[in-house]
Each structure stands twice: as C-alpha cells, then as structure tokens.
C-alpha cells in the first residue's frame, strides 16, 4: 500500500529507506530526495507564525500522476517520508497519518536500542520486519 518509506536525519542524510519494489528503489529515492525542499519549507514555516499547524504531520508534500508523497517530522528533526500509489484512492489521509504515527513509534523503539548510534544508517531486523508490515498495510 506504500511504495516507499524513508527516514531522513537531522542533516537530511538518509537513515533508512525501503521500497516495496527493489527495481524502483533508485527512482523512489530520487523522488524522496526531491521532496526534501518542501519538507524543509514546511519545517521552517513553523515558528514564523505561519498559520501552519504545529503537528508533526506535514501532509502531502507533492503528488504526481503515479505517486503521492507525504511528510512527517519528529521534534528531533528526523523526517519521515511515505510514498504511496496515487491510483490507490481508497487510502484516506488519516490512514497515512496512522502510518506515520506507527512509524514514529517504531522509530522511537529503534533509536532506543542502545547499540544504535544516532545519526547513522539504521539497520535492524526488528525494524525491517515492522516496516514491511506497515508498508503492506497490515499493522
């Protein structure tokens, strides 16, 4: 149900990226990367007294005929990005929110692994499994 889930560090370095289809990985990575401008924009809008909501969910960053790309930022400036299939009209936005929330929880737990060094790429079986679940939409 999601094409790609990506986690991007404070400094916009990729910490984790998984795609439903390995063939498309590079392409999706390009798209996710391109989304960062908007993410930053939205992060900055906050605190500029902009009407923007203060919630961590950044909403739809951009969409193409094929993809919808959503963003989320934690208070620790870690960015989550979820790419979903545009054609999938069934997917409601609040489902995306839910995905982000779950992802956030997973991420929190992953970060709490004392053997994970913050800022480095995350490789964790546990996390992989959970994220796979998340992508396939059965959480």
């Amino acid at each position, binding site marked *: 149900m999601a094409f790609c889930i990506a986690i991007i560090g*404070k400094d916009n370095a990729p910490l984790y990226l998984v795609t439903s289809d390995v063939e498309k990985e590079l392409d999706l990575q390009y798209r996710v990367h391109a989304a960062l401008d908007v993410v930053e924009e939205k992060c900055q809008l*906050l*605190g500029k007294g902009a009407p923007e*909501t*203060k*919630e*961590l969910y950044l909403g739809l960053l951009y969409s193409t005929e094929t993809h919808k790309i959503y963003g989320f*930022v*934690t*208070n*620790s*400036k870690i960015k989550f990005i979820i790419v979903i299939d545009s054609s999938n009209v069934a997917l409601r936005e609040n489902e995306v929110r839910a995905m982000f929330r779950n992802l*956030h*929880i997973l*991420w*929190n737990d992953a*970060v*709490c692994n*004392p053997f994970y060094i*913050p800022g480095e790429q995350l490789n964790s079986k546990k996390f992989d499994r959970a994220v796979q679940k998340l992508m396939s939409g059965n959480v």
Partner: protein
Amino acid sequence: MSEEIVFDCLHAEIVNYCLGNNKEHDLATLEYIGFTTGYRLIERLTRDSSRFKDELETMKFICTDFWTLIYKKQVDNLRTNNHGMYVVQDKAFRFLTRISPGAKQLEHAPKFVAFTCGLVRGALSNLGINSTVTADVQSIPACRFHIEVNRN
C-alpha cells in the same frame, strides 16, 4: 514509588562504577551515560507533543514536563536571562535526597548531578539545541542546574 528505588539503586551503582575505575575521566563518563540516555529518552517523550515553535518552548518542555516525568516533582524555580541562559532550581533533587546533608557530603555532590547534567544536555541536543549544562549544589539536597545554550 517502588520503581523509583530500582532506578535510584541503578543510578547509585552507575556512579560507583564510574568512580570505581580511574579517577580523572569518570565524571565525564557519568555525564556521557546521562547524555545518551537523555538523547534517546526525549525521542520518546516528545512523540505526542506538537512541534516546538522555538527555543523557549523547547526549554519549557524540558524544564517542566520532562523534569517532572523524570524527577517526580516540578522544578521549584526556572529562570532565564533570555540570552540562552536558563537556570533550573530544585530544592530537593532526587539523587541528593538520599545522602545526608553535610559539608563532607558536599564535595561528593558532583557525582550525583553529573548524570542529570548529561541527561538534560542529551535531551536538548536531540531537540536541536546545543548546550552546556552545569550544576551547583549549595546545600544538599537543593541543587541548581545552569543550562547555557551555545548558539551557532
């Protein structure tokens, strides 16, 4: 609270551990243990809180909510000079309540605050605020933490 005592024991042991091996870098180690703990913990604690608008908001969170959660009591006093210097006063600091007051104890005080300095620094740094956290203990169990934000 029954869980608290467990942590207090652990904390005491950690202090011993750090002071056990060679003397010079132990406080640093202690502080660092605190740092990593804070860095990770804050990730969880801010999960449900909305995005912080600015430094002040963040500071408020750390010095009120965060503090209360960890130390089971609100800080007695929080002041700032609005130039990145914040002072947190705790009249009965959790890790100092267990040691009997007295001049002799006073020199041991640093052991019991180092972890917390790290904890706070870690939490802040993960929220994007680089700071230097120091503490001073005038009379056990009262304790004051100075948080100095390093801009740029």
